[in-house]
């Protein structure tokens, strides 16, 4: 731990180790550093977006030990010792994850800003419920806001991924 001066008070930084996208990463962080800023600023992983910054829109969604959370409302120090998955971690063997293919095939995005969060929430849903109904998909995605698509094609993209994953026996 080293003492630094930042903001209005003197603080101590904390050493954290996070398993990020299946790789261990260690860093010294200020307590007030939000996970989303750790990912984007410290590590340069800009796939996780900052939307509303008020725990509403879901653009900053990442998986913490496999469960979706909003990384704008979580301190980087709280992630110490835990597993974090961002959109960059969806890639498998250099290829697209079925959920990414689904969004491409079904035009599940227009501007793309909400898409990383949508895909991570959908991935967690499919891990728990490989064959969700439309209602279950919409319920699961209710913490992720899209201002372009009207959600129709996002739902179709998740259904496409579910079918692909079932076919591949994942």
């Amino acid at each position, binding site marked *: 731990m080293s003492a630094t001066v930042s903001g209005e008070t003197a603080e101590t930084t904390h050493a954290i180790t996070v398993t990020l996208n299946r790789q261990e990463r260690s860093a010294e962080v200020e307590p007030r550093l*939000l996970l989303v800023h750790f990912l984007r600023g410290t590590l340069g992983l800009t796939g996780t977006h900052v939307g509303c910054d008020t725990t509403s829109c879901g653009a900053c969604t990442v998986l913490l030990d496999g469960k979706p959370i909003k990384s704008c409302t979580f301190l980087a120090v709280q992630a110490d010792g835990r597993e974090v998955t961002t959109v960059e971690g969806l890639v498998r063997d250099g290829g697209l994850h079925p959920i990414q293919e689904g969004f491409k095939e079904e035009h599940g995005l227009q501007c793309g800003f909400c898409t990383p969060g949508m895909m991570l929430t959908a991935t967690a849903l499919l891990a728990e419920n490989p064959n969700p109904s439309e209602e279950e998909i919409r319920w699961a995605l209710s913490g992720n806001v899209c201002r372009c698509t009207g959600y129709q094609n996002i739902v179709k993209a998740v259904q496409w991924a579910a079918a692909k994953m079932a076919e591949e026996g994942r």
Partner: protein
Amino acid sequence: MIPVGFDYVAPQSLEDAIGALAEGGEEAKLLAGGHSLLPLMKLRLAAPTLLVDLRRVPGLTGIERQNGVFRIRAMTTHHQVATGGLGLASEAAATIADQQVRNRGTIGGSLAHGDTAADMPAVLLAYEGDVAARGPSGERTIPAAELFEDYLTTALAPDEVLTEVRLPSMDGYGFGYQKFNRRREDWAMVGACALVKKAPDGSCEDVRIGLTHMGSIPLRASAAEDALRGRGLDSDAIAGAAEQAAEGTGPPGDLNATPEYKRHLARVLCRRALEEAAGRA
């Protein structure tokens, strides 16, 4: 939005957490799931000088049933409460914001925050449950009716940790939960929860109604309860009782709803919650 700088500790025992709180003084705050505190810190409406994170303290999650009481450890998440088979408490927890929030937010954190617009405070009140609080001089029990003192103010002392929430199992009671908001992740404009027990002749043996966001603290709709207790549970009786749901309340007006509109919502939501509860009793 970035919080004002603060010091941070994550003690490994409850004793150390209580010690750190005492040492940190009035500007020290406990961090559980962070879904009430961190948003306030980002808006700089709160600027604690020390956060005492409870994440490493063992034994603060899980639900147990003992002698007709559900003992919910304070760091149990809304998701765990929602899927815990607790009747009204589970139904209400399932409506909190969205799954990302329910994966982080905790029942103890929500109650200790004491927001009148949050779902769980009025639910605790309707159950007539209580919470356990541990401080430097030991543990005490705070009944629901004494926990909420004013807007965002509870009976918890600055050096106390809310460790457990206790809800009677309410066997034989039907339940209903209704809230009105514009988006899933919004706080309730108004919420109403109801617990109803039917007598063998089909009349109302007991009823509890909790109101969310109808004052500076969560409230019981006592006038509506009194109007229904001992009477029939037909839709006319329920509608008549629900008409009194806003009696004695002083709802704060805000951008979403005027006080008069909130009184209207309380009457409508109370009727729906009672009908739901009576149908399940």
